[in-house]
């Protein structure tokens, strides 16, 4: 029954012919809500596409105001891939060359390599007010932004030194796509992942060589480089999934969304052989628990009040249920649901001076909810949401995997499958 449903008469991949002009998408676009200069999803997406197909001069640079949050797609009753249409139009028609600033923001891995090597020097420098003002003036990176700190020892280094040798003791195995953030800024999240997976009976391995998923390259218009990295990653995933029968898990919702959906939709990089077995760690764990193959035992004294924020890409994936279901399994957690809203950062978007106001305006309803929720901290699966919320509220943000790692009784959990 599957295929016939939404595409009986289509010729395009993104369904723009299915648009019935109902304007429902425009109601839910977070940018339109705060910035009337943005033409909105319907105008920029399916309506604009019709015009652009006739004459590409109809392309409008204001399309770069789109956050690519895909909330319009989630709302559309007709399966129109509005966000994809907009991003593809930017890729195809934009004549503006990416600025130096955009290259810096986009190359998270190269910049990360340099910065983490010199972390003790870089961190204090980018934190200095005059430097931030200089970045604001010259590079147009908004001075309100606080750069995430770079860690001294990269996750990969830590893994090779302290974790790699133990991984072959396990019977079952997964590969871990850690992403730039875990590697350069926050290795703890990767260590927590290894702790949980080991407790669940899985050895964790790195891919032969992972490259940055490329999400920031795509949004900053560096398409050739993004495509190259995508092809590289798909090959690396294949070596794990197809050759070694090892699924790939990740802790970053944005990386995994990009690899599963943006590679084929925006970059034309086929991923059929790896897509189903590339997923989030929380989904992987949920499946094990749901099918009775794993039981997690939690510490008795862990007590926290937590609010979960659904990142836009989790909303699009529909996967926040896995993270929240796992959190709710922890007996000591007092769980607060937040209304799903965009936080406004959208990766590197909010770092740009021209977007700062829009970015904070979009996020305000979310910040207000978190501020008034009286929680110990917030939880979310996306690293840029974490920066944004930590910068804009008084609350800290933790990854669900880190919360599980903190609350888990490792010994008791291991005992259950070892016997």
């Amino acid at each position, binding site marked *: 029954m599957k295929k016939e449903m*939404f595409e009986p008469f289509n010729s395009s991949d993104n369904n723009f012919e299915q648009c019935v002009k109902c304007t429902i998408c425009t109601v839910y676009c977070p940018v*339109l*809500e705060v910035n009337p200069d943005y033409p909105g999803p319907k105008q920029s997406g399916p309506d604009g596409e019709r015009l652009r197909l006739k004459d590409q001069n109809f392309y409008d640079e204001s399309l770069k105001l789109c956050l690519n949050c895909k909330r319009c797609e*989630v709302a559309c009753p*007709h399966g129109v891939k509005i966000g994809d249409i907009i991003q593809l139009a930017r890729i195809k028609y934009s004549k503006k060359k990416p600025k130096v600033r955009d290259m810096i923001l986009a190359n998270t891995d190269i910049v990360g390599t340099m910065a983490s090597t010199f972390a003790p020097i870089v961190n204090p420098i980018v934190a200095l007010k005059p430097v931030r003002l200089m970045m604001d003036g010259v590079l147009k990176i908004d001075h309100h932004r606080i750069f995430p700190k770079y860690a001294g020892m990269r996750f990969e280094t830590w893994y090779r030194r302290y974790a790699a040798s133990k991984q072959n003791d396990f019977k079952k195995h997964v590969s871990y796509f850690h992403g730039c953030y875990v590697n350069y800024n926050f290795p703890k999240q990767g260590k927590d992942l290894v702790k949980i997976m080991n407790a669940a009976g899985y050895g964790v391995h790195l891919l032969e060589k992972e490259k940055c998923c490329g999400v920031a390259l795509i949004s900053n218009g560096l398409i050739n480089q993004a495509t190259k990295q995508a092809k590289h990653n798909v090959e690396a995933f294949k070596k794990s999934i197809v050759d070694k029968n090892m699924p790939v898990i990740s802790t970053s919702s944005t990386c995994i969304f990009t690899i599963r959906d943006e590679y084929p939709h925006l970059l034309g990089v086929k991923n059929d052989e790896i897509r189903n077995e590339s997923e989030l760690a929380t989904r992987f764990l949920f499946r094990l628990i749901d099918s009775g193959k794993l039981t997690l035992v939690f510490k008795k004294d862990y007590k926290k009040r937590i609010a979960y924020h659904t990142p836009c890409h989790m909303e699009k*994936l*529909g996967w926040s249920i896995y993270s929240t279901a796992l959190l709710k399994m922890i007996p000591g957690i007092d769980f607060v649901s937040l209304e799903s809203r965009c936080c406004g950062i959208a990766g590197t978007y909010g770092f740009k001076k021209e977007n700062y106001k829009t970015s904070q305006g979009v996020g305000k309803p979310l910040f207000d909810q978190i501020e008034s929720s009286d929680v110990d901290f917030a939880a979310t699966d996306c690293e840029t949401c974490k920066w944004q919320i930590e910068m804009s509220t008084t609350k800290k943000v933790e990854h669900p995997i880190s919360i599980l790692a903190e609350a888990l009784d490792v010994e008791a959990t291991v005992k259950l499958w070892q016997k």
Partner: protein
Amino acid sequence: MKFDNIIIGGGLSGLTCGIKLAEQGKKCAIVSSGQSAIHFFSGSFDLLGKIDGQDVKNPLEAIKILPDTHPYQRVGIENISRLVVEAPRLLDRAGLNFFGKADENHFVLTPMGIMKPTWLTIDDFTRFEQNDAFPWKKAVILNFSGFLDFHTLFVQDGLKKYNVDTQIKNFAMKEFEAIRRNPSEMRSTNIAKVFDSGDALDEFAQKVNQLSEGFEVVLLPAVFGLFTKNVALNLKAKVNKPVVLLPAIPPSVPGIRSQILLRKRFEELGGTYFLGDIVEQGTFKNNRLVAVQTNNHGDIKLEADQFVLASGSFYSKGIVATREKLYEPILGLDIDGDTDSEKWLDEKFFNDQPYMHYGVKTDSGFHALKNGKPIENLFVAGSVLGGANALKEGSGAGISLLTSLHVAEQILK
């Protein structure tokens, strides 16, 4: 992933069914591929507006002469009499205040200036007792400059029939300058967002008071209260003349608010609402539906004891017609309708079109049929059902609300 009940479709029927089940402690999930027909909602829920082209005065009585195949007859008159009392209460608990009687239609003024019979009307709008008179003689019709989704001339024309002396006035406010610059965005929902977030309402009310001097009543498009409740009521309190709101071209502001509040109520009761996900297929075993598979959850199937199909009609693709065939696209259920496509259309466009009666076939207990056999734990509710031309007879929301509550009762038995 296991639930007590899973509902396919998150429109009016899916949500009210889910709310009723969740109120009784069921662990429910709703999967909805996109936003629903409530976004186009006029502000009123119809029970039965017309039979053979004639206005119905007492829907509860009139239902009795509908054919046996009509969903109301299949729910049963006794059940209907009970559920018409329950439905507005359930909506009320979700924060939606609807007023009206099932044994006596009232009238609402449409944007075409016509009085239309209906059952329940949300408190934004004005209910009229008669369809041959308008209570005021001098009316001012106000509109926002540049707002093209409210056709003041139609309203004026329609009111002539009731001998109302009308004047149309347009006005501008600086709060709307930004959205006006972008003509495609001067829409009711965007105007509503301005009122939602700021203090534009006071200034606006003052303006309305000035412009309505010398008139008995003010007519305005319904652009108040999208994400915030009570904006329309606050406005009415600030304006010294009676205010009559009229629906603008959809998406409808009160409709979207209704959708949001229903979903919120469902979630507060512990329900799980999966928006933007598509149910793709089901696993059947011994005339039971065991699990459904969705696009987002893939191999992690959604299991439940009972399922409800509330996937809407043609508009929401609960039913699909291609040139050759008519089918239910998700589970391949039996269809109540002609398989011969020659018979779908009556050549006279305004006649009762046969295809408008088509829908998923059920047994008397609203179980879906597959290859002629009832599926024990799969119920069907809302506009995906066949047996009625909701558009022609004015029964859309009534069928959705009452069949969904009826089905919920079957599940709770």
